[in-house]
């Protein structure tokens, strides 16, 4: 639990950090960064809230079992897209979306970056980002919760 100044600054800067992290995840196939880097940035924003507002406030909002479910969903999404490549394209990790009219299926026509390209790569970046957000936040949340329980006794 911190002072009111720290709480206010953390509350103001949290949306900007989260939006920037989601931008890094969504543009992972065009610019530097990707699932891991963007996920680490979003988890940094969540940990800023955890340090500023205290563990009890966060643990009312989200439990570590829910974070565990989200992390498993990220891993399942990644391997699921890979197996969809096995079904539709004939090989594991085949980029079956590229070249079709589906979302992210476009082919770049010039040197200008186009977000609607990349095939299965943006989907895999989203899955890795979800897994990294949940995993890194769960580590620090469990550690802070154990410390606050120990102080309470």
């Amino acid at each position, binding site marked *: 639990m911190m002072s009111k100044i720290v709480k206010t600054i953390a509350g103001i800067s949290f949306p900007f950090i989260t939006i920037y992290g989601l931008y890094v995840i969504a543009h992972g196939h065009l610019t530097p960064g990707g699932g891991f880097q963007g996920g680490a940035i979003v988890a940094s924003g969540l940990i800023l809230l955890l340090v500023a507002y205290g563990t009890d406030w966060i643990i009312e909002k989200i439990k570590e079992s829910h974070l565990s479910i989200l992390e498993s969903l990220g891993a399942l999404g990644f391997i699921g897209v890979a197996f969809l490549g096995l079904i539709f394209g004939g090989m594991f990790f085949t980029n079956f979306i590229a070249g079709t009219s589906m979302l992210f299926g476009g082919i770049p026509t010039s040197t200008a970056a186009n977000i609607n390209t990349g095939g299965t790569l943006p989907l895999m970046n989203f899955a890795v980002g979800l897994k990294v957000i949940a995993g890194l936040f769960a580590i*620090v949340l469990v550690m802070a919760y154990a410390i606050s329980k120990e102080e309470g006794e």
Partner: protein
Amino acid sequence: MIIELLHIIIPILIVATSLVAVLLRDLMASAISLAAMSLLLSLEFYILQAPDVAIAEAGVGACLTTAILVLAIKATARMEEES
């Protein structure tokens, strides 16, 4: 010219912040000094043209590691004992 100067200055600052982190008795100040070292290291990665590694270093090294260290210091003693 400026890039060559930065290649000299930033490693010196990295070594200086690491030495400060070792020498200080206040462990919370040591943790902040390690965060500054991580930030300078990510700047060095960036001017070595590895922006991917720089983003990962800034996120994990400067924020997550510092948060874990601060939580650990909160649960134990803040000042290092005299040996």
